[in-house]
């Protein structure tokens, strides 16, 4: 049992913190994560992270990495999270897609994409969800039909969040149309250039002001060499990637600045001539949040450790996901209660406390227990895969 970091890891963290304290502005952090979407500042920051050697530590040397364990990427995620930067700027490529290319992609795909991902140059957009395939993802309808050296795609995706700025679509489509073949055995994964003729991206605006998108495919031709791994194995690849994705996306540290700001606010804000911080209820609520953040952190540490050791994960990252996303809601709810009437003020009002961040998080927090799989599906997975309960 060891909850510590090695000297080399601590040294990396130290250098990284110095860099982030200097370079990571709130503007960039918000482009990474929030309503603003990745812009030129976040792109430049991404390239700088790579140039200073903070990207790629945990990636194989032959593709431009340093060949070290995943711990370094987790340290990077934690330190970004502590500074409102909830993930790596071009994170779909770096924390999700890249791992599957590495595991399942052809050598040609690896050489083509991995070095550019590690240099922080390109971004992907997940193309999974469809209007009638949400939690029941395997029922997707997007078709890919072989035609010579190409596949021809027709269909529609939805809630593809990075589609308006990503260079590539990480697209799941049906490639086996034989009747009676189980749905999940007929899906393949592809890398598609977003500027291919026949792709239309239409914005969808969320209640928290973030842009996500619908993506329409009309006779889009994609070279066969852009299929990832084997034909009809795509759904398995998506599922095998999910645990690591959870480990890289649901970083408890990103809730720390929220808690920290609320504590500061309670200390600096008076009610009836006394600081809010003297209210025992507020103390108790925020202490509970601090406790739960520690719990979220040990969940993350545990499932990250499994990933680092190559121990098969079944439900552990799902616990991190369910717990951290629900914790975000509890924390924001308490935050809104502490801010009281002022909590409803949006950024831009001179009366808005904490720069309107809590108000924004309040809106955003409705998504966390839905995005990347609902809490309900998460609990099914914990019960069925973790505890062996029978499927209904």
């Amino acid at each position, binding site marked *: *049992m*060891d*909850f*510590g*970091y090695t000297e080399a890891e601590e040294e990396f963290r130290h250098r990284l913190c110095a860099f982030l304290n200097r370079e990571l502005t709130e503007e960039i952090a918000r482009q990474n994560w929030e309503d603003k979407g990745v812009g030129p500042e976040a792109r430049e920051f991404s390239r700088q992270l790579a140039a200073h050697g903070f990207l790629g530590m945990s990636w194989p040397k032959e593709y431009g990495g340093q060949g070290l364990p995943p*711990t370094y990427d987790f340290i990077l995620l934690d330190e970004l999270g502590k500074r409102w930067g909830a993930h790596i700027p071009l994170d779909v490529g770096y924390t999700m897609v890249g791992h599957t290319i590495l595991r399942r992609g052809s050598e040609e795909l690896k050489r083509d994409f991995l070095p550019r991902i590690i240099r922080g140059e390109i971004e992907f957009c997940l193309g999974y969800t469809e209007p009638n395939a949400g939690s029941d993802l395997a029922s997707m309808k997007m078709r890919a039909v072989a035609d010579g050296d190409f596949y021809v795609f027709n269909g529609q995706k939805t809630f593809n969040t990075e589609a308006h700025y990503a260079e590539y679509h990480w697209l799941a489509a049906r490639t086996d149309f034989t009747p009676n073949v189980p749905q999940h055995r007929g899906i393949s994964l592809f890398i598609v250039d977003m500027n291919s003729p026949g792709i239309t991206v239409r914005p969808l605006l969320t209640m928290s002001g973030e842009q996500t998108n619908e993506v329409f495919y009309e006779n889009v031709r994609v070279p066969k060499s852009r299929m990832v791994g084997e034909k009809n194995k795509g759904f398995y690849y998506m599922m095998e990637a999910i645990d690591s994705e959870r480990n890289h996306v649901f970083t408890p540290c990103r809730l720390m600045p929220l*808690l920290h700001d609320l*504590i500061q606010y*309670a*200390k600096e804000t008076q009610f009836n001539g006394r600081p809010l*911080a003297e209210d025992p209820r507020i*103390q*108790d609520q*925020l*202490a*509970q949040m*601090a*406790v*739960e953040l*520690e*719990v*979220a952190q*040990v*969940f993350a*540490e*545990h499932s*990250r*450790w*499994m990933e*680092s050791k190559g121990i098969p994960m079944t*439900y*552990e990252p799902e*616990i991190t996901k*369910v*717990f951290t996303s629900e914790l975000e809601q509890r924390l924001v709810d308490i935050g809104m209660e502490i801010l009281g009437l002022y909590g409803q003020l949006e950024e831009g009002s001179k009366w808005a406390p904490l720069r309107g961040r809590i108000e924004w998080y309040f809106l955003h927090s409705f998504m966390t227990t839905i995005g990347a799989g609902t809490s*309900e599906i*998460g*609990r*099914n997975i*914990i*019960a*069925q895969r*973790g*505890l*062996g*309960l*029978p*499927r*209904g």
Partner: protein
Amino acid sequence: MDFQFTDEQKMLQETARDFLSKECPKTFVRAMERDVRGYSPELWRKMADLGWMGITFPESYGGMGGDFLDLILLLEEMGRACLPGPFFSTVVLGGVTLLEGGSEAQQRTFLPQIANGDLVLTLAHTEPATTKFDPFLITLKAKAQQRSYELEGTKLFVPDAQVANWLIAVARTEGQAGSREGLSLFLVDAKAQGVRREILPTVARDKQGAVFFQKVRVPAENLLGALHEGGKVLEKVLAKAAIAKCAEMIGGARFVLDMGVSYAKEREQFGRLIGTFQAVQHHCANMAIYIEGGKYITYKAAWLQNKGLPSAKLVASAKAWVSDAYKRVVGLGHQIMAGTGYMEEHDMPLYSRRAKAAELAFGDASYHRKLVAKEIGF
């Protein structure tokens, strides 16, 4: 980062689970609830033979030279088995206090006897004024006399008071009730004149006692640690006791989850297993979340303690989380096992009653949240 136990630790865990499943069946647990002593000296002897009482003591004092994590693993198994008896009192409250504050002579006298299974100890700490947990609300008087002290006062919720051979009494030698300064610890022979003990009828039937000290004379050499400085030792002991209690709770909670899952895989209603219902699955998933979080945070707090690193926030976070978690786990367990789990003869009540006792011991969740509040700047 490493969540793996050593091979020795895994072996200890396995041995303990096997041993306790054989030696501590639920019939025995129930019998001990009705027994005045609340434990079996024969089983106590066997546990001592396995080296459990001295697991963290130095080998020179008859111990196994293990660390705090070894003890945590053992306690987790004991919590799983609902092991009745004074192990916690003797080894955690007695042993840790002696290790943290005892003189070499005291350690040499007491530790080998504990390790051999010859002594039962406990900590007489809480007092009637402590209507909510506060470790420093101490008024028990220790008047200095010639080469002795005279103790006068009452202690409540003293675990295993009735069967202890020695009590470690927390007394006030200076200052006001509530102050962490001015406390002193005394080793008191439970048979000394003026000591009277009573068993308290508690929800867990776990033999907590009241101890009355009436002009009890304690020789000066039985002062444990420095005069007036007992508060510092006490704080260390209570931190370890809180983590140790978490380990016990986690073991118990895991057993409740296992019971609930097995039941959901057998019990049919509406022509299907109740374990196929999402409502039941989600109860089980929630139990798993409570327990696994509790387990890792307990290990982390224990690891920090072991390393001598700052641990106040983690210890308090662990006891706050696990106290709430165990309570919720037994609640969900009852919901899954429904009417059958409500029956006295079912194993469920053994756990739900103990969950309450453990939650209250060494500060409940709200007490520990106050400590966390201090740590985060309030």
